[in-house]
């Protein structure tokens, strides 16, 4: 097992390096010189500008610049936010728990919705239930998250007045009241993100169960007289879920994309809304760092999925 873990970790390193290379190349190719402002400023003599360029290594070969940048990123030296006037890493560390909380809960909700529906639809393929579930799944992933978010706000905040539509970190309440307020404000964002993912997960789970349910060992289990419920839960679903782990991991980029939109709509103070506000404020260090953090999160979750996959599927050898 340790060996397997190590191998997976070694595979993850080149993809992180690849992502960092892509980010750096984008930054290097982008028009506009960070010293452009100095160049147009008549008060700064050309010699000073040249000295500054040499000091910051602007004229070094591109490979040297990439290595310097990479070392700084790995040290956690992500620069200084122009807009917020604090270090970028502190800023991101403040914001990241909220994002992980919203994304994690919505994924749990998505699986809680998709699992029973997908399994039940696959037990009765082409039945009325299956067709209705399929149609709803199509509607679910054709409704963009920004539109569902606005629809929910329109229904539950504007018309019914049940839920708040702005996510607040400073709730003026104590005890149970505080928890209630906290849960109430998270309902809509989590529902938007969770139901969108649930739509595609339902289809994955349905087809994964369909692949398994006709196999011989399931027939054997039925022939032995085990109840249908037990056959499905113990023999079919457990095996069908193995490929679903990978599919969920492949969805991670779009999950974090959805998180950015949801955070922006409901004004959740996570790293997604940080990214948008940084872009609107031209705050380059924050933009680069947040994008890199999102990439790391995706790689991390893929790694996690690989490990779970190896743990779930005994056919994968650890040697």
């Amino acid at each position: 097992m340790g060996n397997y873990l190590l191998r997976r970790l070694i595979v993850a390193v080149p993809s992180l390096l690849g992502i960092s290379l892509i980010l750096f190349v984008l930054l290097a190719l982008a028009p506009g010189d960070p010293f452009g402002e100095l160049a147009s400023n008549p008060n700064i003599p050309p010699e000073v500008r040249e000295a500054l360029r040499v000091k910051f290594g602007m004229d070094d070969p591109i490979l040297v610049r990439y290595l310097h940048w990479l070392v700084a990123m790995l040290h956690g030296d992500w620069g200084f936010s122009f807009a917020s006037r604090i270090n970028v890493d502190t800023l991101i560390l403040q914001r990241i728990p909220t994002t992980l909380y919203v994304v994690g809960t919505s994924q749990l909700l998505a699986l809680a919705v998709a699992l029973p529906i997908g399994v039940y639809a696959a037990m009765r393929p082409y039945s009325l239930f299956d067709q209705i579930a399929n149609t709803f799944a199509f509607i679910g992933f054709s409704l963009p998250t920004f539109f569902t978010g606005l629809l929910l706000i329109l229904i539950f905040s504007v018309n019914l007045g049940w839920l708040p539509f702005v996510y607040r970190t400073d709730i003026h309440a104590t005890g149970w009241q505080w928890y209630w307020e906290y849960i109430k404000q998270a309902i809509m964002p989590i529902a938007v993100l969770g139901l969108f993912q649930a739509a595609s997960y339902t289809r994955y789970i349905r087809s994964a169960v369909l692949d398994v349910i006709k196999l011989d060992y399931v027939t054997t289990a039925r022939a032995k007289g085990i109840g249908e419920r037990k056959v499905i839960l113990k023999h079919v679903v457990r095996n069908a879920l193995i490929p679903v782990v990978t599919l969920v991991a492949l969805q991670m980029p779009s999950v974090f994309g959805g998180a950015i939109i949801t955070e922006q709509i409901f004004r959740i103070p996570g790293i997604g809304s940080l990214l948008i506000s940084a872009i609107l404020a031209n705050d380059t260090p924050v933009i680069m760092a947040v994008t890199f953090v999102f990439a790391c999160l995706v790689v991390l979750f893929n790694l996690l999925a690989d490990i779970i996959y190896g743990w779930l599927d005994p056919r994968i050898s650890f040697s």
Partner: protein
Amino acid sequence: MVGLTHASPSVEAVAEPARRERRFTPGGEALRRFRRHRLAAASVVVLVLLALAILVGPTLWPVPINDIDFTARLAPPSWEHPFGTDDLGQDLLARMIYGGRISLAVGFAAMAVGLFAGIVIGAIAGVSKGPVDAALMWVTDLFLSLPQLPLLLLVIYLFRDGLKNLVGPEGGTFILIVLVIGGFRWMSVARLVRAQFLSLREKEFVEAARALGASKLRLVVRHILPNALGPVIVAGTIDVAAAIIAESTLSFLGLGFPPDIPTWGRLLFDAKDYLDIAPHWALFAGGAIFLTVIAINFIGDGLRDALDPRKVM
């Protein structure tokens, strides 16, 4: 007559003596299968109607998109303004027609970019063996694990001004958005094409062509590629929907087209602050995105059924 098909061909043969032999071409068969997917067939009608409305709309509804009328601010739908007006009293129907052109154009252009890149990369990987294949597939997997929306935003942030100065605000943004969205959507196509190539290149008909002395390029273009296109067409259809959503997302975040160009996402972005007094504004724009995307997704589903000859219907 085509819609009325019997359970088995033999029944038909008995009922209709073999005077008029039905010819089965691959295309005709696919069309027959496609029509049996009722939602997909209905979606084609919806999409054609939408496209027609967008194309001939301006001649039937010749209201300028930037005609400001403060007496009719945020007016709900009426005979004068079928879709209502926005906060400056501009006619929403006219703006939606204009925005639809951009949304659909972006969707199809980005699909073309993604499909082209995917086919080229997948074909190269599928034909060559060894390190080239491995390297290309590593890049594909790398792109698949990139966080797309943050990178999309980053690229647009970094390059927006440069291209704007080069080609003008509208054209520059269009080119940038199409290239970027297409550039993040080729991976699944590349994988599909490569997988198809790997199995097809060992088939007898390819070997026969090779034995007759066909060049590698001819083998790929004439023999392998046409047989690999089925799943690629399906993926391309789904990509149009994904590209439309991606463009609307960018506009919705305020980072797509310039503010004076009313794409559907931009309309939603502007409408979100008036949800309480003018819900029609958001509902029409969002509804249009939803209708287009779901129609395209259903068509993709129908095509998947129609183009997979192994599938029993």
